[in-house]
């Protein structure tokens, strides 16, 4: 097995172009486990840990550019203001040790339907982009086009993830995850939710309840329309039980879960509806408080 240790981003891209089957390693919290369990024995490993720019982030006031290897711990500590949904999701990942090593680049690289960053990224809106690069150039892949199958993403063989571009939150965001224990657990299912008052939309993300992370499109559209038609963005009035209920039902309907050792399909649907109702309620309560205190 070859062990490649590029010192710069350009060297990394060159190495990936030369060895397209080389497996990138960042925090290694997925890669090392899979090697231990003999899931795969890559011909080469491409270590990204010397490339310091991957552990940096910047915020221009409207978009956060999050380096692929910024660990979850720092997302929680440094970015819970501009990226509250992702920070909440980061809180639920593994244990302190895992959060100190693992990051969003690795989560996207693995593209597991159970990855916790995904529902938060989807909920953050359609303007979330994965910055993928190769010796051929840079692509900005919209998050909605990134997940293509079970543990498959739309990266080309010679591409690496450099960063993720996420709009700064313009409204409340929430993330909930079901696990059969109270910490250190892979999601039975998860749900991300965000209000986007600026453009009058809402964002959703479903985890662990379909072959890929996915958006509950009809739920988003339903809520967007209700909020607009009833002038709720302006009034901040209560949503009413039937709206919350209907939203939960639509989220549930968007999932296509399976039975597995972590839980049943039926339970996943059920709990998604509950999480959808609760996260919507929390976000809306926060939003209407803001509106009313501004008024």
């Amino acid at each position, binding site marked *: 097995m070859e062990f490649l240790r590029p010192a710069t981003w350009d060297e990394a891209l060159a190495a990936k172009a030369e060895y397209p089957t080389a497996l990138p390693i960042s925090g290694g919290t997925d890669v090392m486990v899979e090697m231990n369990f003999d899931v795969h024995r890559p011909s080469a490993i491409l270590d990204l840990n010397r490339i310091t720019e991957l552990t940096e982030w910047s915020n221009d006031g409207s978009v956060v550019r999050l380096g692929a290897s910024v660990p979850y711990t720092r997302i929680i500590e440094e970015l819970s203001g501009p990226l509250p949904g992702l920070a909440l999701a980061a809180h639920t990942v593994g244990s302190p040790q895992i959060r100190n090593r693992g990051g969003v680049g690795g989560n996207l690289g693995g593209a597991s339907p159970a990855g916790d960053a995904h529902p938060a990224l989807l909920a953050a809106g359609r303007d979330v982009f994965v910055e993928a690069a190769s010796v051929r150039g840079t692509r900005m892949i919209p998050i909605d086009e990134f997940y293509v199958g079970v543990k498959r993403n739309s990266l080309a063989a010679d591409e690496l993830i450099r960063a993720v571009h996420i709009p700064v939150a313009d409204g409340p965001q929430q993330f909930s995850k079901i696990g059969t224990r109270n910490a250190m657990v892979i999601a039975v299912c998860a749900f991300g939710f965000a209000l986007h008052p600026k453009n009058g939309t809402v964002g959703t993300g479903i985890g662990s309840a379909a072959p890929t992370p996915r958006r509950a499109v009809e739920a988003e559209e339903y809520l967007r329309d209700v909020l607009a038609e009833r002038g709720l963005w302006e009034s901040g009035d209560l949503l009413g039980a039937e709206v919350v209920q209907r939203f939960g039902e639509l989220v549930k309907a968007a999932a296509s879960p399976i039975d597995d050792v972590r*839980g049943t399909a039926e339970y996943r649907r059920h709990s998604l509806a509950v999480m959808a109702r609760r996260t919507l309620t929390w976000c809306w309560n926060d939003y209407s408080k803001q509106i009313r205190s501004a008024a």
Partner: protein
Amino acid sequence: MTTRTIQGQKNLQNINQASKDGIGGSPLRPDGNLKVKGEFAYSSDLWHEDMLWGMALRSPHPRANILSVDISEALKVPGVYAVLTHEDIPGAKYYGLEIQDQPALAIDKIRYHGEAIALVAADHPETARRAVKKIAVEYEVLTPIVTEEQCLDPETHGYVHEPHEYKSHAYGNVCHEQRLVSGLGVTDEVRALADVIVSGDYEVGMQDQAFLGPESGLAVPAEDGGIDLYIATQWLHVDREQMAPVLDLPEEKVRLTLAGVGGAFGGREDISMQIHACLLAQHTGKPVKIVYSRDESFYGHVHRHPARMHYEHGATRDGKLVFADCRIVLDGGAYASASPAVVGNAASLGHGPYVIPNVKMHAIALYSNNPSCGAMRGFGAVQAAFGYESQMDKLAAELGMDPVELRQLNAMSEGDFMPTGQQIDSPAPVAELLRRVKDMPLPPPLDTEHLDVRQLPGALSNTSHGEGIVRGVGYSVGIKNVGFSEGFDDYSTARVRLEVIGGEPVAMVHTAMAEVGQGGVTVHAQIARTELGVEQVTIHPANTEVGSAGSTSASRQTYMTGGAVKLAAEAVRRELIEKGRRRYGWTHQDITLAGGKVVSESAGVLVSMVDLLGDEAVDLTREHHHRPTQAFDKETGQGFGHVQYTFCANRAVVDVDVELGLVKVVELTAVQDVGKALNPLSVVGQIQGGCTQALGLAVMEEIIVRDGKVRNASFTDYLIPTILDTPPIPVEILELPDPHAPYGLRGVGEAPTVSATPSIVAAIRNATGLALNRIPVRPEHLTTEQPG
């Protein structure tokens, strides 16, 4: 400051004070800091020059015929030193803890998913792994026999072991059975005596010991043709007993030394890689190390028997139990392991700590193509406790009684009889334990004003900000035996040596006891300090140079090997005093050892041990046997079967998110009688650990097996409690001495594992109103499935 010994001077005040690190004290364990810092050497850290790495090829099928095994390609891999199949075994091909029904390597047949077929030794683990993949096995895959119905209908579904191969009382896929009848049994007339009858079917999933240190060891071939094995195990001598015939060596040429053990809980009572490593070492003439990977570990040791149970209890209107009728079906899996003894426990303890005038019981262990099950903390008493304690709550509800009062009303106490006819002849404070656990203060209610998600079900997963949370409280009590039962003489041996080292008297304790984390070595040193009046005690590495210490299981080691250390130390003390009498002509009748000196109550210090011993040593070995027990009668279950009983009562307080089915155990209280707490800190630790393992069984721990295949052989999906799942566990200890036991002590480690699970389930029932007849309780059981 140096102390001078003045013969005859009355300075007893200073020296008669017992060492604070003697029995009753809480000296810290020697391995504690090392383990916390990651510096403790576990068996997986063993290393030897020139050593090879051993690895096994395991079956992907639970049931199959092996048509052929082709090792030629594996042998060609550079760096491979040996590839072995059952044909290469020099001696006996089968071994087993109680019944020799398990092949060291599969012979023609596969009986469970993960069964070892062939072995590779190579110069690097990667090489071994690649070679294992090159072994070509042709299987005829058969439909596995996995359910109770399939097992009990061998005409239709076949036999796991052909009946002509049975080496015990097995019949028709039943590995072992035990019946029990007491009083009038359970007949229509007896049923008619009850005003109220409740019945229920209960199910217990397959729990794993989930120790963190994988099976590992190092086998080193010796010049005399024998083998030295460094191994993490629970019982060195029984390993050797099973290994020697397979290796075709006399037992004295198979020498075992205990290596650092990373947890056991029963999972190391059976052979795992011991024989395999030795076979490879014998064959290659080189040291061979084997370390299981995490998934292999799940295949490589036995688990707790899953159970299906039917219980029926009858009582009078005022709550007095009239009868209990029970059937317990344990799935023993492919090989017997400890199934017979587990069945014996289930049958004899399966009614709980209650006085029941009429009892009928039938307990069986099946042979199936599921993973083998055997010893795990609580050993047959755990499954039953979930059954009988669920029944007590059901009965209380039916009678409109307080569930604790109902239990107290029927609680057994000293002088009562077990359904086996055995009289309880030491304290059995069951009602008192319940009273105390109920009197402990309750935790404050959920603070809805200042919510901290970490305190809620789901914790940082952020599933609730107070919505759907309902609190529940539940109680339970359980019974467990201590020591091996049914006529087995599981004696322990200890050697104690006293000599002067560096100007100080030093005691050395040498036993073959497996220290698996229970704190036995700490207690041995405490006993030596107390009995010999010395401060310095060294613990000799545990090995087979000394006689057997029996197993570190059945809550027995402090009782049995602790008892042997006490006997040996007492003998050393007597010998030392005799030596003094011979030399100095003492005639005092009140001589004892304290503070490093020989002292007389009346005359004061007689001589220092340093002066008395000079450069001689007193070195004596003693065996400790408990009082004999009897086998249970096969049909009636009658017999003086158990050495000692132990009881624990629990109260669980839970918060349940009733919409999502998530549970947070808020507090788990335990009250236990331990006879005498030799090391109170360790005792509390054992009780808290036992409670935590019980919590795991209540709400998360299960090996999921579908069609004979293990589906979650990893810690990603076999969940054990984290610190956020583990609540405060207030413990109250009672010390009511057992006159039959050394120091009056009672085994501690298992009682809470037996009793705590039902209290948690009772609390969840209390919060949800659901029946909950299966453990572990999963979120879907509280929401979408709602069985019962």
